[in-house]
């Protein structure tokens, strides 16, 4: 039996989403064709758009379907940067946090290198939350030069929820658009696009019980975006490409259910997560719980548990748990499978060694009490072994 504790990486597809998707897979029809089959496909897409809009608090016309979170982030960041700079060449700065996902950090790096954008990574505190004073100071320093702001709704590694309302208030005082990557938040905490005040928001299917390869950028109608993909002009002419009606149908079904069941799921997951953390710390008393200890809609995702095990290598722990059928994550970026110490933990003030000694357990809609008990039954000998192996793979004294 597999104990799956990696829902932040991807979560099992909901049967309703799989059914909605497969129902469309065998239907022919390009949503942009004018005949009956095309209209039928288009109807599925537009109904899905309305479903997503209803679930996430935006207007249907504000939903731009994409191939997922990474594309939506790229579209938001590059699209906003180019259109804002085109309107005023002085707008060359992008303000973001030091704990964003690589799908945000890397496009911004690219803009910095190729487009001379000034990328400013604003610091976070030891809980991983944006330093609002530093953010305000960065905006106030020269608001007319800020092209956009991008702050994630909730951190994928440590689950910390960012002060989006305050970020929006500070940025909007100068008319600066705000993007947020909310892929980890939807389904775990309430997310309402209009109420949040953000101008653009990234969401994705496979993190909420939908299919892979589909997501959306929610973007206010009045916000101008420069397109990344040019072609047939689909999706408001900012995202060309034949519309993937089956995936969109599955995504919409998942979105509706994820939002509908979010309140009760959050309560259930928070209780399981607290039990997991308490149990792990009972077995390994020196294990440190990272991120915000307060779990509510303003502080931490209910399904996230992130722990540091001093003296252990995260990838040793992961391998030993994997061998026992328990799946989790070291929560770090990979390059050819080589784990780099997490930039999120480093930004929170951890040193290299602490960052490497960490594991993320993330719970989701299929998580059960039995999953948590299986982990708690295994964790003691696993930590003991990993500690014995220590940092053998690294030079002494490093």
């Amino acid at each position, binding site marked *: 039996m597999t104990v799956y504790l990696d829902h932040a990486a991807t979560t099992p597809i909901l049967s309703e989403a799989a059914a909605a998707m497969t129902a469309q897979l065998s239907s022919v029809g390009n949503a942009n064709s004018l005949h009956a089959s095309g209209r039928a496909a288009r109807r599925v897409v537009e109904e899905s758009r309305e479903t997503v809009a209803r679930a996430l608090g935006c207007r249907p016309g504000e939903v731009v379907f994409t191939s997922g979170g990474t594309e939506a982030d790229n579209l938001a960041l590059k699209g906003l940067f180019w259109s804002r700079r085109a309107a005023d060449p002085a707008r060359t700065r992008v303000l973001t946090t030091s704990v964003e996902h690589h799908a945000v950090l890397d496009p911004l790096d690219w803009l910095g290198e190729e487009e001379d954008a000034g990328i400013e990574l604003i610091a976070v505190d030891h809980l991983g939350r944006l330093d609002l004073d530093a953010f305000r100071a960065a905006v106030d320093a020269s608001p007319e030069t800020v092209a956009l702001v991008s702050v994630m709704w909730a951190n994928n590694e440590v689950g910390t929820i960012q002060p989006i309302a305050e970020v929006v208030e500070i940025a909007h005082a100068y008319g600066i658009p705000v993007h947020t990557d909310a892929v980890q938040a939807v389904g775990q905490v309430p997310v309402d696009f209009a109420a949040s005040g953000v101008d653009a928001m990234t969401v994705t299917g496979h993190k909420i019980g939908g299919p892979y390869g589909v997501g959306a950028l929610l973007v206010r109608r009045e916000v101008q975006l420069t397109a990344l993909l040019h072609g047939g002009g689909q999706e408001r002419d900012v995202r060309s490409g034949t519309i993937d009606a089956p995936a969109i149908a599955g995504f919409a079904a998942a979105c509706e259910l994820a939002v509908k069941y979010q309140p009760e799921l959050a309560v259930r997951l928070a209780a399981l997560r607290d039990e997991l953390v308490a149990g792990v710390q009972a077995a390994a008393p020196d294990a440190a719980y990272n991120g915000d200890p307060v779990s509510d809609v303003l502080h931490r995702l209910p399904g996230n548990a992130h722990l540091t095990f001093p003296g252990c290598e995260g990838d040793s722990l992961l391998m030993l748990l994997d061998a026992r059928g328990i799946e989790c994550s070291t929560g770090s970026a990979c390059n050819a499978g080589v784990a780099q110490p997490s930039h999120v933990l480093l930004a929170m003030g951890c040193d290299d060694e602490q960052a490497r000694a960490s594991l993320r357990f993330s719970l989701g809609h299929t998580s059960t009490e039995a999953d948590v008990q299986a982990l708690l039954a295994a964790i003691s000998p696993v930590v003991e072994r990993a500690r014995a192996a220590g940092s053998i*793979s690294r*030079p002494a004294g490093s």
Partner: protein
Amino acid sequence: MKVLAAMSGGVDSAVAAARAAEAGHDVTGIHLALSRNPKSYRTGARGCCTIEDSNDARRAADLIGIPFYVWDMSERFHEDVVEDFLAEYAGGRTPNPCLRCNEKIKFAAVLDRGLALGFDAVVTGHYAQLRTGTDGLIEMHRAVDMGKDQSYVLGVLTQEQLAHSLFPLGDTAKPEIRAEAERRGLQVAAKPDSHDICFISDGDTGGWLGEKLDSSGPNAVLSSGPIVDGESGEVLGEHEGSWRFTIGQRKGLRIGTPAADGKPRFVLDIEPVSGTVTVGPREALAVSGLTCIRPLWCGTAPTVPTECTVQLRAHGEEHRAVVIPSETGFDVTLLDPASGIAPGQACVIYDGSRVVGSGTIAATSR
């Protein structure tokens, strides 16, 4: 046994892992990431550190049906192998990084970590044979396929390391391994063998050393120096860095004036402090004795002068010799003369097909 299969992405380690799994061992595949910044695609000569190799290893593990992980050994590898390689060249010696990697990484850092994590042994695709001797010790012998025999680069392993090692390919010839890989459906069956130093991706060792051994840093070496005739002391020319030479080398000297006797000249000695490269005729390369340091014994160390054979370079010939234990290692009297022996290389001692031990050549006598 619970064993770790070190999988490079090549055909040998893939078949070794498959054989270990088939023999009933509980096998976990690991690919060692030896560079922090692996190249996506090979440039020129083959290297071990590419993403493509990691993927090849992963696909082989999928097919064998074993778990697979990448272990980051880049920091240890850099410190223990690459830095040592540079320091040795800076000192005018010619190191063999494969022995160093086996001694410090594959059968040390990886094995130690594996043992601590609950594994019993490391299995690799090296061509060598292990068997238990009459004294109960594990003996390492040359592979059946002498063309592929890798006992030389394993000569640094101690009894403790050998007791936790498996070399499932030692009894098989390489063409059969390729055929077996094909039969098993391993995609790497036709992948070319690697020959070059894995961390020098384009195979240009001289150029790579030139970049690393520049005038700054702990391994700074003069980027030019005289080429001197060993007999007359006459300066024959200039060179562009002593690291470009190894003892016995003939090519690349670019000496303008021919030797008085018209015969080719060879590198006889490298003196890194002054950057002097000494050259002379082939006869002057002949070596009759060696001084070896850093001795490592596979089993029982000899305590008295012992007749044996020695191998002085990878895939080199065997020389009959007498090994004489010393304070710092051992001395070797060569009964069959050797030529062009470079300090820094390993002297591996054999008793028949059995590896007795090894040392690093510190000096040669003529």
